[in-house]
């Protein structure tokens, strides 16, 4: 009889332990179920907020587009009439009047550039920019841009060095946009390099892609600002010369243009030594259609 009562006791203990284990399991199940539900809800909230963000983004792009167009019209009219004044059509001008008119013209031009940049940015953000790909000799293209900008560089006694390694390097790209990329970067370099400084434009063949860089001997950019450099309307305290008020959009646009080509762009800089903007462009992107020879066309465009 003793054995049976011992066994019964043990059974009671085991049953109790089992019940406790089951209760514990129930608690864990409850916790997991609640967590699951909460995660699902938070996920939906995230999706909703995302959708709203996209709508706002689209609204902003549309607004930017419309405003840019609206602003251009009166600006064009202003330019027309100011040029009539400059050409002395309504009557002769004295020296002071000519001076004032020059100031007006340069500011109209600056406003026009800003509006164009804004329009560029909004079009790119709206995904409405398409590349017109063709065979481009990037060496010729770069030579063209450099000779175009040599006048500005000479004004500050800045030498533009070319390190090209080869006389011809063909890639499939949008001619005008690559010209814009080089122009933006070299213009920036000229702006931020002090008198007597150096700018170096390098192009190298990296097999599947070409790597280009534009480096200067300006004040440089601090490391923590490397990422911000390509954001819209960022203008750093890099000391620049007179007449160098940019739009703050140049680099943002340049980055978009490089990435449209499926390339990459980044910056490297050392405070006090200088800055280098480096970008890559793939030679060919699969699925490209028409390839027209454009090597010489590039040089002609620059004249």
């Amino acid at each position, binding site marked *: 009889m003793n054995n049976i009562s011992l066994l019964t006791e043990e059974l009671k203990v085991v049953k109790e332990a089992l019940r406790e284990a089951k209760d514990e399991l129930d608690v864990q199940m409850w916790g997991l179920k*609640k967590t699951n539900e909460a995660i699902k809800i938070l996920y939906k909230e995230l999706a909703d907020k995302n959708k709203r963000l996209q709508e706002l983004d689209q609204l902003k792009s549309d607004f930017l587009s419309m405003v840019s167009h609206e602003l251009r019209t009166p600006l064009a009219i202003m330019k027309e009439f100011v040029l009539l004044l400059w050409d002395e059509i309504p009557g002769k001008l004295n020296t002071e009047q000519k001076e004032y008119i020059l100031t007006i013209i340069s500011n109209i031009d600056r406003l026009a550039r800003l509006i164009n940049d804004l329009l560029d940015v909004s079009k790119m953000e709206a995904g409405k920019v398409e590349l017109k790909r063709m065979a481009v000799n990037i060496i010729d293209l770069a030579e063209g841009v450099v000779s175009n900008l040599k006048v500005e560089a000479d004004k500050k006694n800045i030498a533009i060095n070319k390190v090209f390694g080869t006389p011809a390097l063909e890639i499939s790209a949008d001619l005008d946009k690559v010209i814009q990329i080089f122009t933006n970067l070299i213009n920036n370099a000229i702006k931020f390099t002090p008198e007597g400084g150096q700018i170096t434009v390098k192009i190298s063949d990296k097999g599947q892609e070409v790597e280009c860089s534009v480096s200067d001997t300006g004040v440089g950019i601090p490391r923590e600002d490397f990422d911000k450099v390509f954001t819209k309307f960022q203008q750093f305290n890099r000391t620049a010369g007179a007449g160098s008020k940019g739009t703050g959009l140049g680099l943002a646009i340049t980055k978009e243009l490089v990435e449209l080509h499926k390339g990459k762009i980044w910056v490297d800089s050392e405070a006090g030594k200088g800055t280098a903007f480096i970008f890559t462009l793939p030679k060919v992107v699969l699925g490209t259609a028409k390839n027209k020879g454009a090597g010489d066309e590039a040089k002609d465009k620059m004249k």
Partner: protein
Amino acid sequence: MGKKILIVEDNDDDLLITKRYLNKAGYDEIVSAGNVAEGVKKAIDEKPDLVITDTLLPDSNGFVVCSKVREVYGKENPKIIIITGSVDAVDAVKARRVGADDYCAKTSDCAPLLEAVKKLI
């Protein structure tokens, strides 16, 4: 609806949002507390039908609120909901252990909270 709700929450914006949504859903009697000590005191003084508490509080946490209230009132009433901005399975289990009736995520429309409230009171 005649039911009294106590909200223990230290973030003023969150408190405002929760109050507004509860009011909209027809719950007019709402009292609030900004920390655990005040929360437990108000739970004892105001005798709410439901306590909603955030997990993170300046002097302690919502689980302490829950277990202290259960200590005073027992397992059945008031109903207690623990809400959180950072959902965590370990917290959820803890909530059940200290005797909470539900564990909800904080969302900008308070939908999960309102659903839980409706079910409990």
